[in-house]
């Protein structure tokens, strides 16, 4: 029992640290990617190639004066960023970073918790995430914040439907809600076994899912809750210092977690091509698999940024049109198609 607890605590700490580090360096990567796509160099003063920039940014956030508006609801004003940060970190618990590592005859799973309702838990936590934004925006007592918060809640609620429907099609196919089992079903990939990643069977579902993931993370082209040109800063207009930092940080953690979920659900999770043909032991395959998943996640984080610096922001009515009239009917169609093919071809 003690050994189990120690192992879990170590795992939690490691994944927590990695998540925070990736989120911190996402801010740096975002600025670098933006700069490179605009033919610039980006931050390069703090350390070689500016790699200490996140530390400088973090220090700046901590040392800045903390302003809480007099007219705000002080308790909720502080609760807002906490909820945003908390839910962002909680969603990462379920990601299976690898299969099992066997040390001294005991198998250690590289996943903090393997719930049998995995995806539902992720959805639940993500939908609480909108409360962080809503509470922050509403308690600021500022019309720009409030507009941002209203937009955020409307947007997240509408896109959650399409996202859920896209997932239902996937669940119809895999027959399980556990993220680990979904990963294991995709084991092998190209090589002797010829099991394809889910994206091959669910291209439409993947497309819907990734569009909704962009909307859920409030990323461009769906960053209306914080759109600078219309709403000053959106829901975090009144925030300063580390509380603002938490909001920005939560966005990057959300990006990281949704990249991990996308990689797990549609891109084979911790599996990589030819994994059964290399003749490696289980432990090595697990470690290589964790690295493979990490690489996939980083690619999707980059993809988020890539899209951000390519596509302009949607107008609000276009956003709602796309969500309700575009993605939801498509997702329902996808469920129908998946159901039909699952019955027709027997169980895959």
């Amino acid at each position, binding site marked *: 029992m003690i050994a189990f607890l120690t192992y879990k605590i170590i795992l939690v700490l490691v994944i927590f640290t990695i998540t925070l580090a990736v989120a911190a360096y996402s801010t740096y990567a975002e600025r670098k*990617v933006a700069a*490179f*796509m*605009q*033919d*610039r*160099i980006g931050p*390069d003063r703090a350390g070689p190639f500016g790699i200490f920039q996140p530390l400088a940014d973090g220090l700046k956030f901590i040392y800045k004066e903390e302003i809480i508006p007099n007219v705000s609801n002080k308790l909720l004003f502080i609760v807002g960023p906490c909820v945003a940060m908390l839910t962002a970190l909680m969603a990462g618990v379920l990601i299976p970073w690898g299969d099992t590592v066997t040390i001294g005859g005991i198998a250690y799973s590289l996943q903090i918790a393997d719930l049998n309702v995995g995806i539902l838990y992720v959805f639940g936590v993500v939908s609480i995430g909108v409360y962080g934004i809503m509470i922050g925006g509403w308690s600021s007592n500022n019309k720009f914040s409030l507009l941002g918060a209203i937009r955020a809640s409307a947007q997240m609620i509408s896109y959650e439907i399409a996202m859920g429907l896209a997932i239902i099609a996937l669940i119809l196919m895999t027959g399980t809600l556990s993220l680990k089992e979904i990963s294991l079903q995709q084991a092998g990939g190209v090589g002797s076994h010829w099991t394809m990643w889910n994206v091959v069977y669910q291209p439409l579902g993947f497309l819907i899912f990734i569009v909704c993931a962009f909307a859920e993370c409030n990323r461009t082209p769906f960053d209306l809750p914080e759109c600078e040109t219309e709403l000053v800063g959106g829901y975090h207009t009144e925030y300063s210092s580390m509380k603002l930092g938490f909001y920005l940080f939560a966005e990057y953690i959300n990006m990281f977690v949704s990249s991990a979920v996308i990689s797990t659900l549609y891109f084979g999770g911790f599996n990589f091509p030819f994994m059964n043909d290399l003749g490696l032991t289980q432990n090595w395959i697990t470690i290589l698999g964790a690295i493979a998943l990490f690489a996939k996640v980083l690619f999707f984080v980059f993809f988020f940024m*890539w*899209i951000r*610096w*390519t*596509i302009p922001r949607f107008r609000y009515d276009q956003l709602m049109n796309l969500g309700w009239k575009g993605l939801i009917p498509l997702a329902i169609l996808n469920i129908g198609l998946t159901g039909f093919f699952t019955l027709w071809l027997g169980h895959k």
Partner: protein
Amino acid sequence: MLTNRSKVVVKKEMNFWERIYLPAIFGGVAVTIKHMFRRKTTVRFPEAKREISSVWRGQHVLKRDEKGAERCTACGLCAVACPAEAITMTAAERKKGEEGLYREEKYASVYEINMLRCIFCGLCEEACPKEAIFLTDRIVPTDFQRNDFVYGKDKLVEKVNERIDVSVRQTPAVTEFKKHKSLSHNR
């Protein structure tokens, strides 16, 4: 309508491929990824400075002759030529014993150029019959007060021991022209 360049706005319906956005998104994504590997245009400013054109016209200088006397005779042609009316001056008569300071009997006791008005067109330089004023490759620095942009003789006249080279901007044609001392402009 006179120029025949007015366009009639047509609110045309988007076709299927335009409506699903995806081809356009792939197009945009391809453009941005290409830019990632382009040569960067950034100049690391304090360490490196962007090269300026060889005919760049910057801050003015009032030249001295070989012996160190001011060339300007306060004729006022530069002030007349100036389209921005940035130049003002007050003329004074040279006293006995000042022959080393001023080249001719008349000189400018006050000579001011308002750098906020100046458009750096170079017409003062063109108008000057005494080859006294030139525009150089120096950049007028920033300042906090409007008054500080009115440059007097203290900033404009070159120091006797720190001459400012103005030959950089002169085109071969001009240097050739200035060699002919018989031409009225160069006398």
